[in-house]
C-alpha cells in the first residue's frame, strides 16, 4: 500500500473541508477502501479518517417520526438495534446478512452504501477497464457470472450494497455536508436519487463529489399497516455478496395492497425500482400466486450475458419471497 497523509478530523465539517484536497479518499472503517488500496486500484495521497468525526457516530434514535443514525454506525449496530428490528426488520435483516461478523463489527452504514463494485475486472489493477478510464468493459466478452442482467450496456457492474435497496424502499435520506471554501453546507439527498448509472458517468456509482461527507442517514418510521423486507440469494451462506436481492415494502388496507415499493439489487449497476410491478400490485389482494406472478414480471426485459442467465430465476425467487415476507409483516401489524 502506498503511503498517505492521514487526516483525523473531529467532525464531519472538518472532514468535508479536508476531503476537498486533490486525490483524497474518505475512509469509514476501511473494509472496502483498504482492500482497494492494497490492490493498487485506488491510490490516494490523503485519506480522511471519518472514525474520528464524533458526529458521524450519533446513535440510532427516533426523531420527529424518523429513525436517524450517524453515517459511521456499524452494520452490527444496525443488525442488533431493537428499535430498527421493531420498525424496519428488513433493514436489520439486510445488515445482518451482509458479509461476516468481523466485517459487520466494523463496516459503516455510509461506507456500505458507497462501497465500490466487486467486478473482478474493476478490482484488479492489471485490467484498465472502462470504469477505471480504459476503453473496454472486459465483462462483455469475459467472465460475467456475477455481473448485471439489467441495464448492462456500457459497464456491467452490479450494485454491491445490502443496505441500498432497503433504505430506498423505506424512503431513506442521506444527510450530507459539503465543503464550499471554508464554509460547510448541509443538504439532504433521497436515497433513490443517490445513484449514478454508468451511462451518466462511468467512473462513479453515486452523486457525491470531492468535499462531501454523509453525516447521517434517516428514514421515516413506516406506518403500522406497512411491512418491509429484504431477501437475498448467495452462493455461500456467509462471506459472499448477494447473487440477487430484493427489498420490498407493502401497505395493506382492507385486505388489499394500498401501496408497494419494490427494489431489486445485485442485478444492475444501480438499485432498480420496479415501478411497473408496483403499479400492477396496487389494489390486488396479497397471495402466493400474486407474488409468484410479480416475481416473473420483475424479470421482464432482462438481458442476461453468457454466464449469468441463472440470475433471472433467482430474481423471480427473491421478489416472491420479499413480497410474501412484507405482506406477512403488514398483516401481522408488524412493519
Amino acid at each position, binding site marked *: 500500500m502506498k503511503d498517505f497523509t492521514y487526516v483525523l478530523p473531529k467532525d464531519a465539517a472538518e472532514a468535508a473541508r479536508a476531503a476537498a484536497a486533490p*486525490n483524497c479518499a474518505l475512509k469509514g*472503517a476501511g473494509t472496502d477502501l*483498504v482492500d482497494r488500496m492494497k490492490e493498487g486500484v485506488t491510490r490516494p495521497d490523503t485519506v480522511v479518517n471519518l472514525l474520528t468525526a464524533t458526529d458521524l457516530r450519533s446513535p440510532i434514535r427516533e426523531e420527529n417520526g424518523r429513525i436517524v443514525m450517524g453515517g459511521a454506525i456499524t452494520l452490527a449496530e444496525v443488525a442488533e438495534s431493537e428499535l430498527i428490528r421493531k420498525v424496519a426488520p428488513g433493514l436489520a435483516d439486510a445488515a445482518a446478512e451482509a458479509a461476516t461478523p468481523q466485517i459487520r463489527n*466494523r463496516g459503516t452504514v455510509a461506507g456500505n452504501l458507497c462501497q465500490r463494485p466487486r467486478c473482478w475486472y474493476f478490482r484488479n489493477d492489471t485490467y484498465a477497464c472502462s470504469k477505471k478510464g480504459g476503453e473496454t468493459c472486459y465483462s462483455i466478452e469475459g467472465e460475467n457470472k456475477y455481473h448485471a442482467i439489467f441495464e448492462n450496456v456500457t459497464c456491467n457492474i452490479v450494485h454491491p450494497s445490502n443496505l441500498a435497496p432497503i433504505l430506498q424502499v423505506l424512503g431513506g435520506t442521506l444527510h450530507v455536508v459539503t465543503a464550499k471554501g471554508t464554509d460547510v453546507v448541509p443538504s439532504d439527498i433521497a436515497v433513490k436519487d443517490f445513484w449514478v448509472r454508468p451511462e451518466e458517468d462511468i467512473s462513479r456509482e453515486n452523486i457525491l463529489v470531492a468535499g462531501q461527507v454523509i453525516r447521517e442517514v434517516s428514514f421515516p418510521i413506516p406506518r403500522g399497516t406497512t411491512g418491509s423486507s429484504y431477501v437475498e440469494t448467495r452462493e455461500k451462506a456467509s462471506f459472499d455478496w448477494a447473487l440477487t436481492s430484493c427489498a420490498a415494502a407493502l401497505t395493506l388496507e382492507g385486505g388489499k395492497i394500498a401501496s408497494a415499493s419494490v427494489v431489486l439489487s445485485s442485478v444492475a449497476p444501480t438499485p432498480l425500482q420496479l415501478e411497473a410491478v408496483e403499479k400492477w400490485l396496487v389494489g390486488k389482494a396479497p397471495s402466493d400466486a400474486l407474488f409468484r406472478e410479480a416475481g416473473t414480471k420483475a424479470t421482464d426485459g432482462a438481458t442476461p450475458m453468457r454466464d449469468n442467465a441463472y440470475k433471472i430465476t433467482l430474481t423471480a425467487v427473491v421478489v416472491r419471497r420479499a413480497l410474501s415476507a412484507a405482506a406477512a409483516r403488514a398483516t401481522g401489524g408488524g412493519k
Partner: protein
Amino acid sequence: MGGHADEGKGSVSRRGFLKSAGVAAAATSLIDDAKKAMEPVGPAPAAAVRGETEIRFKLNGKETVAKVPPSMTLLELLRERLDMTGTKQVCDRGACGACTVHLDGRTVNSCLLLAMDATGRDVTTVEGLAVGDRLHPVQQGFVEEDAMQCGFCTPGMVMSCAALLAKNPAPTRAECAEGISGNICRCGTYLNIFRAMDRASALAKGGK
C-alpha cells in the same frame, strides 16, 4: 466515491509542514500565519499525520506504544514489529478470518484495520487468552476435541469462538455456526470445532 483523478500534494498539517520545512520557510510561514490570524479567516484544518507516527493502545491488557506509518495494518504491526505471530495472515483481504482479533471485545479482521485506528482501543490477540499456564476454555476445548488439522485457521477460529462464548455462555450449534461464519477452515474441521465449543461451554461453567 474513490480517489479523485488528478495527482497532487495531499493536504499537510500545519505541524507536519513546520517540521518538514526549513527554518527560514517556517519563519516566513509563521509570519504569514500571524498576519492571517488578524483577519477573519476560516477554521484551522483538521489534525493530520504522515510517516512513522506514535500510537498507544492496549494489547492483551498491556499499555503498548508503537510507531507506525498510516498505511500499516494492525496485522502487520503485530506480526512484523511486535513479534506477535499468533495472529495469521492468509488472504489479507477480509475474506478468510485467519487474522481475527478482538477490538474492544468484538471480532475484527486485523488485515483491514489500519494500526492507527487501534489508537486508544483494547486489542486482544490469541496470545492474550490464556491466563499464565491455564488455557482459555476455548483453547482447552480445541485441544481436547482435536479441532484442528493444519492449524492455520485456528487462532482466528479461537478468537471468534471466545467472542461468542463471552456473549453467549451456552451457544447452540446454529449459534456456533453463525459465530464462526467469518472464518474459513480449508481442512474442514468444523464438526470438531462445534464439539470444542460444547466442551468450552462446559469448562467455562466449571464442568468437567
